């Protein structure tokens, strides 16, 4: 985990309200108020080969995240975004624009400086996941699954990998994951694509050895419950509001069987049975 300056390589809308940002590690340094100017004409010398390369600086676990901050004076705090891909000196994020923080990130142009701290937290334990695996994504929860699917697809102990993705209406991010999975199932709330309904309508956990889920709390809770009755191992990636992202402020805690735990260092990936959604079961 390090805090470094990066430059934005590409920041592009891939669906309404959904952006993809790649940042490249920079040699520049700068203080809080004097991040360097935009680098004009920045271009990668060699094309990225995500299929082959790993991130150059430290091992990155799928499900880990970076805290990102732009030059914008507001907001004050960095925002957590999951690693969508990491290769060479580049990290890629897939994100939904919501409030001031993600809008500031969406305004980044090629060459703009970005302060990034990471990789933060504990991700999915790739080496410890075996057999028939289902990845369940709700909306932008699909973000960490491209890198996760790529890593799992290389593992000899995985026999099948199914992606189950739920969206409100518009689909996104699927084609990036397709090369690494054996099957894709889709549900939309308005029925505009795939099955009309929720992800939990199109997957029964019983045939799987492990279910890995990322998405809104109600979805995670439903997935946890169905995995529990099926007796299937379930790991969930949870979100919390964060300030530091490194475990120093205790702002991001969630209620678990072993008390309040920090999402930013003890998570964001937890065994589902550990997490007490709504404070109770």
């Amino acid at each position, binding site marked *: *985990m390090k805090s470094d300056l990066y430059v934005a390589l590409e920041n592009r809308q891939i669906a309404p309200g959904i952006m993809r940002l790649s940042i490249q590690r920079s040699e520049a340094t700068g203080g809080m108020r004097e991040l360097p100017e935009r680098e004009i004409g920045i271009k990668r010398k060699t094309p990225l080969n995500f299929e082959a390369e790993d991130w150059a600086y430290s091992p990155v676990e799928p499900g880990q995240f970076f805290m990102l901050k732009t030059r914008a004076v507001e907001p004050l705090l960095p925002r957590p975004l999951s690693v969508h891909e990491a290769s060479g000196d580049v990290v890629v994020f897939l994100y939904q624009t919501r409030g001031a923080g993600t809008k500031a990130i969406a305004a980044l142009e090629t060459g703009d400086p970005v302060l990034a701290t990471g990789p933060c937290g504990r991700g999915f334990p790739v080496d410890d996941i075996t057999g028939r695996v289902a990845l369940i994504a709700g909306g932008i929860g699909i973000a960490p699954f491209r890198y996760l699917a790529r890593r799992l697809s290389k593992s000899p102990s995985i026999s099948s990998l199914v992606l189950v993705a739920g969206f409100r209406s518009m689909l996104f991010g699927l084609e990036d994951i397709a090369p690494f999975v054996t099957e894709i199932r889709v549900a939309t709330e308005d029925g505009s694509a795939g099955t009309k309904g929720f992800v939990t309508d199109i997957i029964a956990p019983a045939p799987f050895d492990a279910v890995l889920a990322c998405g809104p709390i109600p979805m995670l809770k439903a997935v946890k419950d169905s995995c529990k009755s099926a007796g299937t191992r379930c790991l969930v990636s949870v979100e919390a509001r964060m300030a530091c992202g490194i475990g120093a*402020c205790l702002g991001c805690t969630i209620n678990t069987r072993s008390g*309040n735990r920090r999402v930013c260092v003890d998570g964001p990936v937890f065994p589902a049975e550990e997490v007490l959604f709504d404070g109770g079961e």
Partner: protein
Amino acid sequence: MEENKTTPNLVVDLCGLSLKNPVIAASGTFGFGEEIEPFYDPSILGGFCTKGLTRRPRPGNSGIRLQETRAGLMNSIGLQNPGIEAFVRDILPRIRRFGTAIIANVGGETMEDYVAACYEVSKSSVDMVELNISCPNVKHGGMAFGIDPDVAAKVVRSVKRSCRKPLMVKLSPNAPDIVAVARACEKAGADALSLINTISGLAIDVHARRPVFANVTAGLSGPAIKPIALRMTRDVSKAVSIPVVGMGGIETGEDAAAFIMAGAAAIQVGTAGLVRPDTCQRIIAELLEFMSREDIGSLSEIRGII
């Protein structure tokens, strides 16, 4: 050839404790120091304050704990901590090796809590105790002790009787008269004062038509509170003769210099260290750079000049 200036001297004496420099990481924003190790060597710091410790372990508040505001952060953590016994037994031996001053920040709900907690922790190898009579985020006690000069004096006097380490009392900006509280604490035996803790504020979720925080109010910190913190640091420094440690919204070396000019012996950095983990390291470097540029040989040349 450039004139060969000597490096400015940053050493600070804080009631007998010699600090390498005036930059101290503020309580609640630095864990127990271990989280910062991936970013820099904590031994470069003047010191750091632990997360608020209490006699018994506390789980902290439930619900939302953070809300960002314009140029600031509201928090309602509720003094989540493992308790003094576990701190002294499990954590302190691990962090002692940092080679910087460790200041134990102590919270409580009753007079007995404060006295027992300060006594317990002061028997350990911590360098100093910071008595937090200003936490706005605990239901009972906390800030209530720092609002009224007589109550503050009483708790300081009681704690001081059995506290074996220098006692720094952390003041609340929410007191109607912070100078009166400061004077009362000095008279009651405080060895130093630190200020300010967070300013009590309110955030409302208008869609849900309810307060954002379960405790209704929460504490505001960050750049937004700096002018208030500076003014209070100056007012209190002028009113007492014990050292005053200033904080509130410090982001840069020049901010640190401003607090020292307002009379602070040393400074603490909270929220800015959450924004960027290497902030304290940068502030030390920036302060040195500022002093060299302005030809200031030691902090005493600028302390309290405003």
